[in-house]
């Protein structure tokens, strides 16, 4: 059931996406009417043009419903749009979210080491040696970059 839902979502993603853009542009058009002329002119022109294009695109999709669309011409490689591929993609976004939470929670350097180690061990079942080596390497790299480029790190929420 879950896989089927993801499958349906992936195949028909383009219509909800255009609808999402359309709603955003209608909001821009509506909200911008309360601005002064200088602040209103450009968003009004852009949103009006965008709404027209979105409606035309929805009309085109309606006329060509059922036909499979090719992917972005500028994107290379995989045409894989299977539910599994989609779910895997979302999983890696979850990994990145976890890293962001760690980054803000315990600080940049420990988070980076922990994230690399956890991703390699838990997700890819990589052997200990390369995993630990890469985790240590990234911490040293960040430390070095921080010194050379005078990067600033977040003050950890957890306070250490």
């Amino acid at each position, binding site marked *: 059931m879950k896989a089927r839902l993801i499958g349906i979502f992936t195949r028909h*993603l*383009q219509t909800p*996406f*255009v609808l999402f*853009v359309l709603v*955003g*542009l209608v909001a*821009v058009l509506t*909200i*911008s009417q309360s*601005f*002064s*002329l*200088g*602040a209103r*002119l*450009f*968003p009004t*022109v*852009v949103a009006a043009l*965008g709404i027209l*294009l*979105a409606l035309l*695109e929805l009309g085109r999709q309606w006329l060509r419903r059922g036909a499979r*669309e*090719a*992917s*972005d*011409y*500028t994107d*290379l490689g*995989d045409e*894989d*749009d299977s539910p599994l*591929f*989609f779910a895997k*993609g979302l999983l*890696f*976004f979850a*990994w*990145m*979210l976890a*890293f*962001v939470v760690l*980054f*803000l929670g315990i600080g*940049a350097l420990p988070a980076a080491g922990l*994230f*690399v180690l956890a*991703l*390699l061990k838990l997700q890819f079942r*990589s052997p200990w040696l390369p995993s630990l080596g*890469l985790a240590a390497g*990234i911490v040293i*790299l*960040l430390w070095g970059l921080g010194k050379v480029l*005078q*990067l*600033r790190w*977040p003050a950890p929420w957890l306070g250490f």
Partner: protein
Amino acid sequence: MLDAFVNAFWILLDPFRLLMLFSGVAIGIAVGILPGLGGLMGMALVLPFLFGMDAYAGVALLIGIAAAVPSADTFPSVLMGIPGSSGSQATIMDGYPMARRGEAARALGAAFTASLIGGLIGALALSAVVPFARPLILAFGSPELFMLTLLGLSIIGVLSGNRPLKGMLAAVAGLAIGTVGGAPVAAEYRFAGDFLYLYDGLSLVIVALGLFALPEIVDLLARGGAIAERARGLGHGWMDGVRDTLRHKWLVIRHSVIGVVIGAIPGMGSSIIDWVNYGIVAQTSKDRSRFGKGDVRGVIAPESANNAKEGGVLMPTLLFGVPGSSAMAMLLGALMIFGVQPGPQMLTRDLDLVFVIIWSLALANVFGTFICLLLSRPIARLTFVPFHYIAPVIIVIVIVGAWQETRHWADLAFLLGFGLLGWLMKRSGMPRPPLLIGFILSGLAERYLWMSYNLYDWEWLTRPGVLTIGALAVALIVASVRLKRNTSQRAEAIQAAERPEIDKESRP
């Protein structure tokens, strides 16, 4: 003008700027060789680290990346039959069969030499255009500049994806996202509510990293495995390849010029340039029997055009402030970070910087070629590293880079948000480059529109210059769409004819 040209060379010779140029070339080679990554992602990765750098060093770094990718992407095309980037698809047609015959080194030698000459011709063409274009461009008023911005944006929108409407819609969405924050021509904040973070608008670094870095990493991780399961050895014959290119010097010059001309049309993209040139060389050669079976001319023509096009795409970018490609949009964004206003003013106020860009392009091609030739064996080995060892490093750098923007938690939240948006756009067939370019051009377009409206009311629409540019836009869009459609059909036909053989050979 000549003073500025010479002065720019001395500016670039500063050791730190040369180091940045060299670093850019190294990054460009690394992202060029890994299929799925590319110049755009490489440039997005370094954007956060440009703050505090001087503009000359920053543009040297970015141009280094942009110039090195078209050379390095030849490795996977020749060795594995996989395009390293969209600009090296046609190189596979003859480069890979040459590798199958044990002539990989010869193919690479020919490709790198052709790339070097093409890149230098591109830089030369760009420097030759600047003095002639300057008086014409300085005569433009704000209505014409607004129309030029729209012209560039609409061509990119129409050409970027498979569906012109989707591309245009993405461009308009980018323009709309660019309106968030303080209005450039009125003391008012828009669409920011009480959220102080948004008062300065969304950052280019966050939008670019989100749209172009995260989706690529996620897709490559989801696909899994190493980039190459196996590849053939490089073999011998480097000097034969160099000699091949020098023997076909007129072919190199012809295709470099074609690369520059097509590259100067915003949005034409490297894959179109690549295939157009392959098509031309295959059609116009007397002996066509060996094309698709390992004819070195099939490597030389697209490779010289592919590097020469960088000079072409810089023409609209530097002269009009209209990015010739997505990577050039990133360069424009970087120029704004340095406080440089892209467009005609650059030719008066920042002429030194324009020439530094041209010199960087020329030197980056030289550095890139020599690195590719001298370090070809270790570089080729990069393709065997499983991507899950590369991805965590890139993810950490992306997130650390995004954090440096304003050091606010919202930087990271928007990064992930735009990452998800970019990935969904990729999955749903919506082209992402027009969105980024629309976002970058939004402020500029708004200023031009407001100045035009303020000075001429809506009558600016009837100015002869505006009407001419409008007519030109329609003609250019129609011609470009036709060229793209014909090229795509021809490329598909060529690939359909050759692919089964290549696939069969690729199988272990």
